């Protein structure tokens, strides 16, 4: 039986009157790379948070790295979260810490030796092109730089599962390509399972093995990343090609 890093089964999630997820079923095999795309506010970030154990579903099953996370207390989820690296859409960098302290934070909490932390942090910051910015506060950084600090922090501890929520948002095309090359090299080295959400379908398709399309609260389509641009499904086709006319005219924000 295939070992899974993430398993969502019939997951429902509601915020106020709006039901964002209406029965999502999604699986990510260990060591695989899955991309998640979909219209704005379709629930992609919610799935990331469910997979990190940061949100609880209203209904359905969520297992992460073989552990059920539904109904577990915060103190019980700690062990699972320590095995996950996460890049938040809005960076979630700690503004009371410098760039290097942000990146070092997961390792310090894990109790790694100081010299090993310093070497690892320096390597990570070099790899995302932020050598020389170690002492800056995150408030002094541009959006793109913050994103790169977030990526360095998410990958610094070589987690078993890494979740990237919009890793290329705010980055120029060249930096986007560099970042995806870096993420691919990291994944090849660590064998981590990867869930990546992005609006940049072309760049994402080069990084992941498969892409799932989230629409109207469900996984509407899942297929090989290499063929996503040629998908026959009219909704997916319209979305990935950015066409104005088509079945996707409500941008997936309907109540369904």
């Amino acid at each position, binding site marked *: 039986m295939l070992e899974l890093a993430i398993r969502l089964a019939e997951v429902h999630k509601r915020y106020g009157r709006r039901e964002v997820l209406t029965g999502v079923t999604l699986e990510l095999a260990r060591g695989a790379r899955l991309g998640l795309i979909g219209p704005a506010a379709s629930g992609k970030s919610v799935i990331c*948070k469910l997979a*990190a154990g*940061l949100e609880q579903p209203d209904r359905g099953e969520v297992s992460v790295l073989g552990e059920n996370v539904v109904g577990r207390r*915060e*103190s019980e*989820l*700690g*062990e699972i*979260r*320590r095995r*996950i690296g*996460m890049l*938040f859409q*809005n*960076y*979630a*960098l*700690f*503004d009371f810490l410098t760039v290097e302290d942000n990146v070092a*934070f*997961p390792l310090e*909490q894990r109790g790694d030796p100081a010299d090993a932390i310093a070497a690892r942090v320096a390597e990570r910051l070099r790899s995302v092109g932020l050598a020389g910015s170690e002492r800056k506060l995150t408030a002094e950084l541009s959006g793109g730089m913050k994103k790169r600090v977030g990526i360095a922090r998410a990958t610094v501890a070589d987690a078993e599962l890494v979740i990237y929520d919009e890793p290329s948002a705010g980055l120029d095309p060249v930096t986007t390509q560099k970042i995806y090359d870096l993420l691919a090299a990291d994944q090849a080295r660590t064998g981590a399972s990867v869930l990546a959400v992005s609006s940049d379908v072309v760049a994402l398709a080069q990084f992941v093995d498969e892409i799932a399309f989230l629409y109207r609260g469900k996984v509407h389509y899942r297929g090989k990343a290499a063929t996503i641009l040629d998908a026959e499904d009219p909704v997916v086709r319209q979305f990935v090609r950015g066409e104005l006319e088509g079945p996707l005219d409500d941008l997936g924000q309907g109540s369904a």
Partner: protein
Amino acid sequence: MIGERMIAGFGTTALRITQEVGGIVVLTGQVLRALVPPRIDGRELVKNLHKMGNRSVPIVVLTAFFAGGLMLIQTGPFVKKFGAAGLAGWGAGYAVLREIGPILIALMFSGRVGANNTAELSTMTVTEQLGGLRALAIDPVRFLVVPRVIAMMVMLVALTVIGDLVALLGASIVGRAMLGIDWGTMYYSFADNLKPYDFLHGVYKSIAFGAAIAVSSCYFGVTVRGGAVGVGRAVNAAVVAAAVSIMLLDFFLTYLTG
């Protein structure tokens, strides 16, 4: 129609207040639970002690000095009228140590430190920094809230003690400068009439005020919703809640302990 609206409005307000009081009680429970065993981030605690305490000293000294002086100005005419210069220090000291000092410094502390604390925590909440901590398996209450609560309680007591002393000094200087009461008379007026309990009465009030300011400012910070507008609302709510709590606690503590 208007009556129904009034009842509905009253009910909504009552529900909201109940919800917020309940939330503050739950957060208090979480803080107490996080203290057993006491695993506190030392760096966070020291940083907050410095930020909340040391940087508040100038404003507390200024406020306390004039508050002490004001006590003498208010009582001065009666002291002169009845020739009771020996009681001037007692009157000012009694009011300062038991009431004016703790309340004034707590309100000042709430406006400066409590509001700042709420703004900081609520900004961290809306920018998902608390989510970032949770994603790293760190309990935000243990890591962020507990050091702040301890720092606020410790520092408000320390500032109240400093404020009391400065207020008595202010009273003495004003008494000398404006009413001609000599230093010795003022000193013996304090020493002979004020009891240690008058001082301790203010100190234990400041412990309660510190806890109220700390928990309410943290509560509104970590439960904020709605971006920058939400941050403003949270700060406003925290300052109001702290001021009301200070007055209510002062009333009941004074009533119960005399």
